[in-house]
């Protein structure tokens, strides 16, 4: 999986986040108070303005302090009952139809159909839940105001804060229920869709002529090879040993075990269910640095001309290497040896031998003593996850025995060095391309964790929708919430626009270029018009920069890649998501409350 930035722990994030959050919240309160006072002062004079702002602030604080959970729950129940018969059922109906016809939309011959189905279910669940949240939250209060049913509520002894929070809570609970159902149905859909087996008969097998089995070990004597039947747009090559037991090669991201049964004096081959289709790897990532062709340490490897510079390349046939340094390794975490997984890119400057892959080697090294194992050679297969397990007992190049933890790990630290062996060929790697795999977590739990991100998105949308609806009418609140969602999903793009990272990305400059059909490669003509455009774009960039600080970061809550590519979502990431969302919900609730209190109906 691509790791474009280093994963951070919850504590690292929290220590950096809380001061900014407090600052922003304080700034927001200050701006709202001073701004409100100034506006009212212009209209009603400073004394009246001071009086009203004071009442509002005090009233809000009192509302917050005296909020009753019982009344909030009553409001939440009311919100749920109001909305239950509307959009929720339509949402379920659409989800059902989408799953029924999914086979038409999903490319089942993909290299990883399991991942594709996960992405499909995730996308549709997210879309429908967010649209439901948008519709129920944006229209509820305005409808109550329009139909005057709000008066039956506000005439009861209930506080504005309880009305606003009750709405948010009620809609969120409805959304949660909908999401739980969608996640459950989606899980069954994904697992059932990719579940299959193949047929294999004796006629499909011939005596093996290969030297190596599909797993890379030496081919056992009497082994036979062949191909399974074609099911779900794929088939597997299979190797069976003399005892009739074997396994298939990996195709479409999974493999099968093969066994033999005797019935009526005949041998039948039984191909088991798909294995390795769904993972929840819990990797340990190391810090990556490189060695240049002379063996000197460097921060980055070579660039072979790719536009995407995520990976650096290691030159073959030289001292160049990629070195990962792992820390915090404990023997009890690796009782059966050290499983290393890697996914490499290969870059050739010459064809090499026809049909042969590029040879690489791995060496484990003690970072303090320099003691290293004998190189373990392997043939790189690009884009496939290759697992190499190093046993606890190893040997150095001279054959001297080494113990993994006693001789190679120093204070929990170990280095793994990767080299490309043939001259003029290259391996491309990034930090996340080689990791240790002490264990795998449950895929089922990970699937549920993946939906936590959607749940948090739904909470944000509900809160923002209710907030906008406290002072805007239904359609406008809907548009405002939609704007918040769209910008929240485009936050990265907006931040790039604001920082100028996107070249020629100015709003007016883009407009001019479109109308004049001028490509990005050409400069605009010098002159007053261009200067005006530049100044206007700088203003817009300033605005976007500040806007992006206030938008909910919805896109960072999308964790589907972890699920689709088979990695466990780190608990720290979930905590960061959760607290980050809470940090956004608090000011949104406060704004909603204040705005609602300014309305006549709530006084």
């Amino acid at each position: 999986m691509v790791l474009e930035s280093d994963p951070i722990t919850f504590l690292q994030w929290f220590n950096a986040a809380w001061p900014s959050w407090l600052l922003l919240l304080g700034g927001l309160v200050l701006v709202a108070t001073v701004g409100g006072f100034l506006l009212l002062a212009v209209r009603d004079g400073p004394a009246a303005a001071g009086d009203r702002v004071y009442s509002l602030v005090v009233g809000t604080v009192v509302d917050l302090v005296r909020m009753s959970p019982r009344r909030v729950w009553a409001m939440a129940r009311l919100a749920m009952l109001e909305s239950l018969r509307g959009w929720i059922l339509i949402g379920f109906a659409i989800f059902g139809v989408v799953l029924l016809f999914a086979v038409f939309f999903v490319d089942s011959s993909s290299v990883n159909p399991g991942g594709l189905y996960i992405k499909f279910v995730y996308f549709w669940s997210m879309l429908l839940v967010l649209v439901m949240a948008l519709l129920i939250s944006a229209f509820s209060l305005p409808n109550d105001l329009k139909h005057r049913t709000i008066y039956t509520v506000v005439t009861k002894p209930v506080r504005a804060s309880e009305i606003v929070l009750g709405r948010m809570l009620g809609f969120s609970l409805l959304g949660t229920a909908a999401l739980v159902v969608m996640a459950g149905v989606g899980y069954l859909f994904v697992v059932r869709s990719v579940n299959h087996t193949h047929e294999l008969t004796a006629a499909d097998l011939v005596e093996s002529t290969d030297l190596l089995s599909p797993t890379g070990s030496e081919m056992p004597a009497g082994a036979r090879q062949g191909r399974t039947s074609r099911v779900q747009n794929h088939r597997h090559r299979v190797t069976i040993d003399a005892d009739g037991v074997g396994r298939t090669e990996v195709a479409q991201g999974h493999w099968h075990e093969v066994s033999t049964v005797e019935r009526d004096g005949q041998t039948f081959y039984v191909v088991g269910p798909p294995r390795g289709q769904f993972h929840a790897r819990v990797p340990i990532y190391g810090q990556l640095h490189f060695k240049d062709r002379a063996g000197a340490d460097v921060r980055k490897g070579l660039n072979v001309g790719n536009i995407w510079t995520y990976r650096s390349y290691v030159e073959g046939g030289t001292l160049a290497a990629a070195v990962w340094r792992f820390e915090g390794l404990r023997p009890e975490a690796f009782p059966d040896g050290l499983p290393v997984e890697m996914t490499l890119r290969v870059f050739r400057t010459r064809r090499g031998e026809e049909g042969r892959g590029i040879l690489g080697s791995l060496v484990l090294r003690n970072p303090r003593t320099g003691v290293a194992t004998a190189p373990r050679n392997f043939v790189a297969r690009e884009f496939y996850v290759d697992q190499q397990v190093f046993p606890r007992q190893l040997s150095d190049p001279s054959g001297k025995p080494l113990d993994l933890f006693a001789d190679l790990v120093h204070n929990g630290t170990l280095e793994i060095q990767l080299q490309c062996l043939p001259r003029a060929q290259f391996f491309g790697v990034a930090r996340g391309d080689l990791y240790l795999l002490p264990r795998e977590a449950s895929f089922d739990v990970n699937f549920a964790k993946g939906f936590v991100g959607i749940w948090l998105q739904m909470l944000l949308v509900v809160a923002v929708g209710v907030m906008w609806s406290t002072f805007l009418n239904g359609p406008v609140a809907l548009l405002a919430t939609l704007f918040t969602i769209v910008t929240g999903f485009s936050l990265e793009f907006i931040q790039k626009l604001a920082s100028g990272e996107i070249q020629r990305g100015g709003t007016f400059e883009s407009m001019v270029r479109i109308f004049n059909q001028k490509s990005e490669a050409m400069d605009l003509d010098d002159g007053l018009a261009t200067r005006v455009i530049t100044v206007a774009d700088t203003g817009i960039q300033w605005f976007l920069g500040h806007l992006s600080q206030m938008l909910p970061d919805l896109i960072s809550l999308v964790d589907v890649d972890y699920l689709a590519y088979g990695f466990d979502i780190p608990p720290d990431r979930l905590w960061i998501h959760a607290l980050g969302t809470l940090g956004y919900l608090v000011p949104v609730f406060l704004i909603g409350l204040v705005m609602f209190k300014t309305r006549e109906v709530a006084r």
Partner: protein
Amino acid sequence: MNRRSFIRKVVYLVAIAALLAPMSMLSQPATVATSSAPASPGGKLAQLRDQYQLGQANLGEVDPTSETLKLMTLGLRGFVGAVLWHKADEYKERADWLGLSAVLEQITHLYPNYVGVWIYQSHNLSYNVSAEWDDFRDKYYWVIRGIQFLQKGGSYNENEPRLLTQVGFFAGNKIGHSDDRNLFRKLFREDDDFHKAQPFQQRDNFLYSKQYHLMSQRLVDNKGVSPGMGAVLFHIQPVMSQVNYSAALENDGTFGPGARDAWRTAAAEWRDFSRREFPDRVGGVIRLGDLALLESRLEETRQQLDQLEPGLRQRLIDARRDELPEEQRRALDTPAELRSSEQDRLADTAEQRLGIPDAEVAAQIADPQAREQADELVARIANFRQAIFEVRMNREIVNFDYWLDRVEMEALPETIEARRLIYEARRAYYEEADLLRPRERFEQAFALWRQLVDKYPRMKDDITAQDMLEVIREYEQILKQLDEPFPQDFILADLLELRVNPF
């Protein structure tokens, strides 16, 4: 207030009713005849759709998924398409094949009848994505995915020869001519899932390519649709597929009747191609095989012109010669091999001035009746010249003369024998590390090749000669290993002149 509101609503209703009439005329659907009502051609849009064969059912397979997705975009198909296209590029750049395949699926559902989408993205799969993978089996998988992508596009666009042509091109070019061609051709033959019930013997990528080029050709010939490229280049493709198939057979070690028949078929198809009619640029029709005929007719017509007033052309030449400057006349009188470079230039200028145009000859004919006849002949001469120009130009485009000779030569038993000897020599050299047997085989092959290039001199200076140079280089390596000098009187010494870099 209420009254104004009422009037406004009435105005809206009237406007809606008024707009319904033209809308109905425009968009009324066509209907078929029933027992109670006659058939109706429908509104203007339905008629235009029918006229230009733009109805979904006319274009190809109707895809409900596609229609659903188009509807779901709520009129934002262009925007969604642009976003997906951008995503596809991003996924390719980041080598995210899972994302790429998903996005391509969606794009094609959105634009099932945009042929450019199918062609661009299939090329992306077969050429760009496959090149990203290191293992030849993975590369092959993506090449085939590109071909299948095109075939799927073809099912939605049944009247579109470009998609069929591209399948033919990918199967021939990517599988048959890439660096991994030997492995690809083997995998292609063994690909039961792709070929399904097709017999193993017919699973040749070049034959497959030819089959698709022929399907495309039939579509163009029978339905009159545009091939989407120059006519000559379009119609040469099935013939070249046969040529490539024949060459590939020998490359794989198939000689004897199999290779001979394949080359004979290629020769016959080249002859057919030379008789195929192509439109020229002035509204006429040409055949590439008619060059000699056209040249002889031109010459014949010019003679007829000269016969109308015998000696006239010579008199005109003589008169113009008298007008030439002295140094040009002297240059002309000097034998070509004795001219200085300055005299060469002067003689060229003089010869150009002495070339009397046929129209000028016709204009100088004294007899008015003969002059009228001459004008007709001049017009015919101009037509012949134009046709010859067109034929020559198109023959050059497809390297006509070379291939005509080549297919004829390759079908000869001597050529097949020479190629067999070369194949055996190479196998013995590369696979058995033998030196003596390959040398003997090479020398036998060179002797046969001598006879062939003497008979077909065009083979001395084209790709065939370049291929033979590679063979000679291998022969020289063997001699070096045997510590023997390269023969001074080497039988194909004239071919060595083509070498850019000496061994």
